[in-house]
């Protein structure tokens, strides 16, 4: 490794293969878990469990594969804004439907 690379490493965090392997395994376990859970009869909890596991996997992808954990505050704020805007828009859309004729179609 050259001197230049050493310098660059100080300025910019490099995520190593070990982290990626651990995340890969966690995602595969999560996939197995969610498929297994779909075979159980959980009633209303089936979609909740599926979405919770999906969100857990998504968080791992965003934090480690997409390096948000190691990124600047600006990036973190941008990701936070995206999640907030998405939830706000979905929430407002649903509140409109729910307050009009929810369950009466």
């Amino acid at each position, binding site marked *: 490794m050259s001197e230049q690379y050493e310098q660059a490493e100080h300025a910019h965090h490099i995520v190593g293969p070990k982290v990626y392997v651990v995340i890969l395994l966690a995602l595969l376990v999560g996939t197995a878990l969610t498929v297994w859970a779909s075979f159980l009869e959980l009633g209303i909890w089936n979609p909740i469990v599926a*979405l919770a596991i999906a969100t857990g996997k998504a968080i791992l992808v*965003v934090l480690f594969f997409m390096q948000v954990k190691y*990124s600047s505050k600006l990036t973190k704020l941008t990701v936070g804004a995206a999640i907030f805007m998405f939830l706000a828009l979905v929430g407002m859309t649903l509140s409109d439907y729910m307050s009009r004729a929810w369950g009466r179609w």
Partner: protein
Amino acid sequence: MAETHEEHPSYQRHHFESVEQQKDAANFAMWLFLVTEVMFFGGLFTAYLIYRNWYYAAFVAASHQLNVFWGTLNTVVLILSSFTMAMGVWCSETRRRRGLVLCLSLTVALGMCFLGIKSIEYHEKWEKHHIPGDHYSLQSFLNPASDAEVYSEYHDKPLPLDMARHTEIYFSLYFVMTGMHALHMIIGIGILVFMIFRAQAGAYTSGHATYVENFGFYWHFVDLIWIYLFALLYLISRHQ
């Protein structure tokens, strides 16, 4: 590539103060693009959520037509491709040219594998006339026992005609959502092929990994969308 002219490396554009600032700017722009992607897919997810609540019985019966085995296999393939992409980013950052070319090539191969499996699933929908349009068939929903393979697993009761017709909405959303996802993958594979040629020439292994990193964000985002599509389309209605 890395030789300097004046005081800065050749890959630093003149309107940036430093390489670090250039990297931050490109990174921020990439994330802004991904925010627009969140809004785009978010709209589709919201439509799915509302229609699923409206035509619940139709969505349950229609989702039973999806094969959990293919869906699971594709999820594993896509997660593996995200891993090889992440390793590609690491190779780029640590200046391993051969490793980078290998990782990008594996990512292309896994991406193609995903699309191949998706086409097997699409073909099955084609054969059963479950593609929305003039040739759409309600038979699997009006007379579930006629669809032996699915019936043996789910024992669905026949749907009344007006509800059965709403299964077409499920498949419209299914094809739009998985189709837009597949289109993102096709575009991604195109960029990957371009990157493999550039990487062979040493483009991303001389201290400037931003392009590979930002493409990696895009590829992982596509993986992330699939994680939710898999849960919502394949898994959540198996017991209803």
